[in-house]
């Protein structure tokens, strides 16, 4: 078998092996590659930076365990940013399978880093509700209709964080960390009908779709995949020395740590594409000569 034929018919298991090595090696031996920022993430960051202490935002966990490596770092970076700026956060989960436990774990992790933040005053966890579209329509009329109690069963009416707050229209922004359609519902229902600005943190696969919404002004910003999470962490670290210290020391998984592996796998894929095309062009030339 000639080299060209061998390149053409590479057993896919070789590709799988290289992919595995490209992901595993940077995780075991971190390279610390630099992360550049993009306009969509900077737009999201600057929007939150423009908020004032006491402003209130909505954070929606609309993803499941399968995309947690991409979405968890985004949600946590956003939450840390809000806490650092003394912005109040209302959290909910609308993804049916695993969204609630992810939110509980993620919120508990970040809350431990900010012991001065008071539950019920600075942040609240409203738990999970089924039927995202119906929930969003009700949020436009009265939040307590959609979420009468928080995740612990405490009625939300009377909580200090909801003083003077009744509808989603009064929130400065909704940050939806999404996989699938629920992120789109926030844009087409909440932003379109109630005017609340939306920032989205989709998985990398869905991110290209949201550029259309970004350019039309329906989104204030976007964190695309793990790269978007890494960018947000970089921006946060640059703006706040305490956050820089945190991201330098933390043993938790962050988007920045995942970028080494992502770079490795991109390199492998580009390499194999290059090899495949070399084989293709050589085969074509061989056929041309024959």
């Amino acid at each position: 078998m000639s080299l060209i034929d061998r390149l053409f018919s590479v057993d896919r298991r070789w590709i799988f092996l290289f992919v595995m090595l490209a992901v595993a090696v940077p995780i075991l031996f971190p390279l610390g590659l630099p992360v550049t920022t993009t306009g969509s993430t900077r737009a999201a960051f600057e929007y939150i930076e423009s908020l004032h202490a006491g402003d209130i935002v909505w954070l929606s966990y609309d993803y499941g365990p399968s995309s947690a490596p991409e979405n968890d770092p985004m949600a946590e970076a956003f939450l840390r940013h809000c806490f650092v700026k003394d912005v109040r956060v209302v959290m909910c989960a609308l993804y049916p399978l695993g969204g609630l436990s992810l939110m509980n774990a993620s919120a508990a992790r970040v809350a431990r880093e900010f012991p001065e933040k008071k539950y019920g005053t600075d942040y609240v966890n409203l738990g999970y509700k089924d039927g995202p579209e119906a929930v969003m329509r009700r949020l436009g009329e009265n939040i307590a209709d959609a979420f009468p109690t928080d995740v612990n069963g405490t009625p939300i009416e009377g909580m200090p964080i909801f003083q003077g707050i009744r509808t989603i229209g009064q929130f400065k922004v909704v940050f939806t960390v999404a996989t699938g359609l629920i992120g789109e519902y926030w844009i087409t229902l909440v932003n379109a009908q109630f005017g609340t600005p939306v920032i989205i943190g989709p998985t990398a696969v869905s991110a290209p779709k949201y550029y259309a919404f970004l350019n039309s002004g329906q989104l204030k910003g976007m964190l695309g995949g793990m790269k978007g999470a890494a960018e947000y962490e970089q921006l946060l670290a640059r703006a706040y020395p305490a956050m820089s210290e945190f991201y330098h020391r933390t043993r938790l998984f962050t988007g920045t740590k995942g970028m080494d592996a992502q770079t490795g796998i991109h390199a492998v894929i580009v390499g194999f594409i290059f090899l495949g095309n070399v084989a293709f062009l050589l085969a074509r030339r061989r056929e041309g000569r024959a």
Partner: protein
Amino acid sequence: MRWVIRHCLLAILVFASAASGAPSGTLTPPPPELPAPDQFVAKDRPGDSGKAILLTWKDPPSLPAGATFEARRAEPPAYEWTKVADVKAGVQRYVDATAKDGVVYRYELRVHHADLADTLGLAGTIGPAVVSDPVASHDNWIKPERMNSLVACVLFLVLLLGSIGMAGRGTQFFIRRIAGLNAVDEAIGRATELGRKVLYVPGILSPGDIQTVASLAILGHVARATARYGSDLDCPNRDPLTFTSARETVRSAYLAEGRPDLFREEMVNYITYDQFAYVAAVSGRMVRERPAANFLIGHFFAEALILAETGQSTGAIQIAGTADPAQLPFFVAACDYTLIGEELYAAGAYLSREPVLLGSIRGTDLAKAALLLLGLVGIVSATLGHDWAAALLKTQ
């Protein structure tokens, strides 16, 4: 209560000043007067389902920094005012969503400043109140901010029904060739020749999603073809509603082809609601049972590439179709034929070749042409500095 305290203290002050023989005319200077709100109007909130009153006003020019607006409500003829809101300056509107339909209210609005001292040295000063006319909330027939959307829908309907009407009267419409749909019979024929089954995955969402309905329409045609050719069909489902609909679709198709004897309930089966457990099961089936033709048609998410690549590795002919832009590239890369976007919705009409359905595709194309034209005109006018097109299309 504040009224009582204020007047008691005033009395004490007057008495004390008289008793002390202090000369009159040495009172502290009066606090600055707070202005009254301008143009205060209370009306039923337009375009809603009731139970809401909209209060609007203009901030007076001489409003001091830090002042807020206190809104109170009373039900005539009794005038027991209840506070409903404290609104910051600059907002100039408030929706009272606690109103009851049919009940007449009056609203009072006044400026309040928590930090200014009033004549008695008490913190807080309240300006003169403005009272609204009586108002009651009720539900409305029309949502004014959506009228442009309604007009667009009506125009679309006119184009669609007009084209359907023309098709019904015998007008022939040209529909371009869609390779993926032309290959349906070829794929099923291949499966029949090889003696292997046809696998049909109708997406992972419920029939509430229109892509699933489109997929079920195509499933009906595929089931008729498998009934005609006598090949085996396997339709695993992730959503229970889709499972029940798909089963009825396939059963009806086999009945319509006159082959109810070939229909088996196990042809359409339910796997699990979990996305990745479902894809693991279907991938396992593809690898073990090696269907000759795979149809991946409907709404897919991350599992699209896993299904398509696994099917590709088994050597099956694959026809995919989805309207989700995020998954289209994976299907294009891994499948033999892909229905892109609206080709999926046109499939039912294309396969059945019913004139009425073909007419509806024509109507959709006309609507698209109209939108393209509007878009072009809007681009030109926006470039010249006129935003009327964006304003025309803005809806809420």
